[in-house]
């Protein structure tokens, strides 16, 4: 059962942190950060880095990550505002918000997938309890979740399922709608315009579909085949989308037969009409995720693979900051700083921390934090394969991260200092994707 709590931005965050830390679970572990490089090293490595450092420290008024931001906008404006506040004024924000007495639920909805990609299962739990239980909804084995308010959208290779998170206790009754979108279209993301429509980003097609979120029917589409790396490439390899300042922003990988031969690209469209507006080329290769931060976009790129399918620590990959207003992408840190390619990204807009999963080689994917103010890079210990769920909650200010290490998988909540395992059923599948649904 979901537990209703009084939510107000950082108040909930404080409750969450207190409850998680206070639980004193046996599975909790102190995750001492391990410094990789200092801000001075980074700033000396690139002029762009130093300038971006100034920008990020001087701004810091935007909301959360792309994944988080869409929920924040639709789910709770007060939450989003609270999230966007800087640490200095967070206490006043708490007081203001707590007086509003808004009743809210924030529920973790996660999808677990086994190591052989044969099995999958949906789990859920209230953020306050940090305890996940099975939803009893069988959706297959390759599911990515996105959320918009209380609705969670399960993106399967060939279909989309809309799930009412407020009814997850009722099992399959929580499924509101399911719609096929074509064989192996591989939807990767939904950029939510509002509660009734959104753009579905397809990786398996060179198109983006505008969905009626009630019926899940496509009402419009955008052809992005012109952005493919070559005419022989099957698709443009779109990987993510978001609505930023009324514009649809799409992250495009531009892979040519699974190889990143060209730097990534950001394409901008009108959010309503889908009319093409502009592109912004990235500096590095194979973008995997982006997130909104201080009115700009942070982009994580993984780069190319070496002969052993590892990602070398070089300048073909890294973390970039994209200023949509001036149409420029700047590298904040390269793969040489992170030790590999960036596989996943989530941004804590309160503490100005970008969390990235750094893919080094098969099974070696540590969780690394990047301080957007100081440019300090630290590795969070005790996570070996952070390729699973990766989501920062604006409500609890917790990073949920799935360690899919074979034989030692775990689903963690990380508050910036401590790692704590979420309570799962004994045979829970390793987390693959997770979101926060709120209402």
């Amino acid at each position, binding site marked *: 059962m979901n537990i209703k709590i009084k939510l107000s931005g950082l108040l909930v965050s404080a409750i969450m942190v207190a409850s998680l830390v206070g639980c004193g679970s046996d599975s909790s572990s102190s995750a001492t950060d391990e410094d990789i490089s200092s801000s001075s090293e980074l700033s000396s490595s690139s002029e762009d880095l130093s300038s971006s450092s100034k920008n990020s420290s001087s701004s810091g008024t935007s909301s959360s990550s792309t994944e988080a931001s869409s929920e924040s906008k639709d789910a709770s404006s007060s939450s989003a505002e609270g999230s966007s506040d800087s640490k200095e004024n967070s206490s006043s924000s708490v007081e203001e918000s707590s007086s509003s007495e808004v009743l809210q639920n924030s529920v973790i909805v996660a999808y677990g997938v086994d190591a052989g990609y044969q099995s999958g299962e949906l789990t859920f739990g209230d953020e306050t309890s940090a305890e996940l239980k099975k939803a009893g909804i069988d959706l297959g084995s390759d599911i990515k979740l996105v959320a918009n308010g209380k609705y969670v959208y399960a993106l399967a290779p060939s279909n989309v399922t809309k799930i009412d998170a407020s009814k997850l206790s009722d099992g399959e009754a929580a*499924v509101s709608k*399911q719609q096929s979108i074509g064989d192996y279209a591989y939807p990767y993301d939904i950029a939510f315009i509002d509660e009734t429509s959104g753009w579905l980003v397809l990786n398996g097609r060179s198109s983006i579909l505008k969905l009626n979120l009630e019926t899940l029917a496509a009402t419009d589409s955008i052809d992005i085949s012109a952005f493919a790396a070559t005419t022989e490439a099957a698709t443009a390899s779109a990987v993510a989308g978001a609505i930023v300042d009324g514009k649809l922003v799409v992250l495009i990988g531009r892979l040519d037969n*699974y190889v990143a031969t060209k730097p990534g690209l950001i394409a901008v469209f009108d959010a309503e009409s889908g009319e093409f507006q502009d592109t912004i080329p990235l500096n590095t290769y194979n973008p995997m995720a982006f997130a909104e931060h201080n009115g700009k976009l942070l982009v994580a790129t993984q780069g190319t693979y070496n002969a052993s399918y590892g990602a070398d620590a070089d300048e073909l990959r890294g973390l970039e900051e994209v200023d949509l207003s001036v149409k420029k992408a700047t590298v904040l840190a390269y793969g040489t700083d992170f030790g590999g390619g960036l596989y996943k990204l989530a941004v804590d807009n309160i503490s100005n921390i970008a969390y990235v999963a750094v893919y080094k080689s098969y099974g070696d994917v540590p969780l690394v934090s990047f301080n957007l103010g100081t440019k300090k890079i630290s590795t969070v210990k005790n996570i070996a394969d952070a390729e699973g769920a990766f989501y920062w909650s604006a409500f609890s200010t917790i990073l949920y991260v799935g360690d899919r290490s074979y034989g030692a998988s775990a689903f963690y909540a990380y508050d910036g200092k401590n790692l704590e395992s979420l309570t799962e059923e004994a045979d829970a599948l390793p987390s693959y994707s997770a979101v926060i649904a709120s209402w």
Partner: protein
Amino acid sequence: MRKTSVQNALLPYIFACTSFCLIPVSAGAADSLHVQNLGTSEILREEVPAFSEEGPSFVAIDSKAWEGKNLSAGELLSKEAGIQMQKFGGMGSFETVSVRGAAAKTVLICIDGVPVEDAGGGAVSLGSIDLNQVERIEIYKSYAPAKFGGNAIGGVINFISKSEAKNRNRILASYGSHNAYEISYSISHELSEQLRFSSLAGFRHSDNDYEFLDRNGTKFNTEDDTVRMRKNADYSQFSGTHRFRYLHGNGAFSNLIVTHSNDWGGNPGKESNQTVIAGFEKSLFLTKYLWESPYTNSVRSEAALSGKIDKSVSSSYYPLDKIGYNYNQYLEYGSIGYTARPEYRLIYEPSSSPMRPHGTLNLSADFEYLEDRDNNTLGSRYDWSLEKIQGDAAAEFGLSPIPLIAIDWSLSGRADWLHRSEGILFNAVSRDTIDDEQTKHFYWAGRTSIRIGKSDWPVQGFGAVAKYFRAPQTMELYGVREGVISNPDLKAERGFNFEAGIRASEKRFRNSLQILYFETHSKNGIVWVSSANFVKPLNSEKTHTRGVEVEWENRTFAWLDLSLKGTVQDPRDLSDISYYKDKLLTNEPVRSFHLTGTFHLPWQFDLTGELHYRSRTFSDRANRERVSPETLLHASLSHNFSTNARVTFAVNNISDEDHQNIYDSYPKPGREYKATIVQDF
């Protein structure tokens, strides 16, 4: 009832028969070795059903059991206790069997004694075996006789090509649902007193265009469910074996055997994702010289040298076929292999000796070269080649210290050396190279069995314990495909098998009963583990299956034969991985049985009804994807004409069942009809 002659006293007769037989082979290698040893198969209806002399784990199925009945090899095998089948479509589709909980890839599939392997490291598909060209199937459950080596945790299934022991010429033709037809011939001709020629060939085809319910992959949206026609699932095969057999003046024989097989067809994809032009083509050409020494009172030997070319290529076009690699151009990916195999075998079988000692020594080697056959830069990461040299030695010895007890031992060993070439990656941003690698391995296996009680006693007891291995396959050690990570450090999977039981027969009501308890343990099982965008084979699976097999046959009435074969088992995954631990093994039911009744009607009519049941299974290791229990009904009616012709009409899956999990569904044909005529002359 079949009667298999293997007793020492019958060896001269066996040798006489097989010496003049010509042994065509279907899609595989040819080797008369095992036909000689095991003798000919006769269909004789005995008063009391007889047990196999080979032991409780051995079953031989004669061609009469499937001729005209529209059964694939896997379907036929799954009638036996302890054997479970998995099939992915109609004629020619991929199908496998597991034995006593041992995964399909651990079951050694042989054609005339020569192992068949899947180049991709998986299980061999039984769907490409044309039963019309098979005379007999030998099933060794959890048991690998020395002549097959020890690479067989689940045991051995050996398909014996049609024997010409009866000097029989035959034509077979059939037609059935979905434009399925088969035609084959076998002829045998004595060119001179010393030289005999035989030839066997067949063609079979099915459009496999059956109807099925397409759930569109949307379990929670039944509005888009539609009945569709299976597309791009056609299958064709042409295969044959041709042989010259020459009798030397000293009594030895020389055999020259040529075998060929071509399979081609569509690759239809899953239920909700049918393809348009995806397909495959497999070709095999094998030639073999076999020398057989003159028979003496106790010792004989055989030597052979064979060469094989084996090519397998799949194709797809992603804009139409949403399978395989996401690539805009027509893709072909596959490999071609060249193998040379010398063999030597020494057989010691005295016709009369105290304690009835007997034994065999088997030596063989394989020299294999494999390289890519791709038209693209995805099917292979670079221009690769693999080399393998493998040597096998196996010995088997048995005796009866007292008439009441027979004991057999076997011990086998394998050493191999594998080498993967170096090369420059096709899809490299820079000129990345893959270094060459090589590994060496040694494996061993052994078995001890005991039988208590004379063969003519009404009750016998038996027991066996064995340790086998499954060597990592080349593609598991050295993956060369996009997204596959090599693991040259893989160890062999180890298997431990145990069985004990009794069997009894009585003459008054003509019953026979066999009850057997078995255990199959395996560890270091090789599974493909995904991380990020890649898969890598790891030694991580551990399983344990224990169960009971029951086989009962009854011939109380002259007009009715009854047979019941059932299994109750507990097939468990003992992996250390929490979400796999203690789960039921994939595709393994707890209960299964097969009931057969044959009515011998007047005017040479036989009516056979079959009921096949298996309890619910799971299509995934973590037991999230459930498959409901399955009950299948089959029937066939056959008539023998006085002109040596036999006509059979068969209906399979009368109730039109197809139980598959929506997320792992390859539609199967449902109800099918087939008419067959066989003419001997």
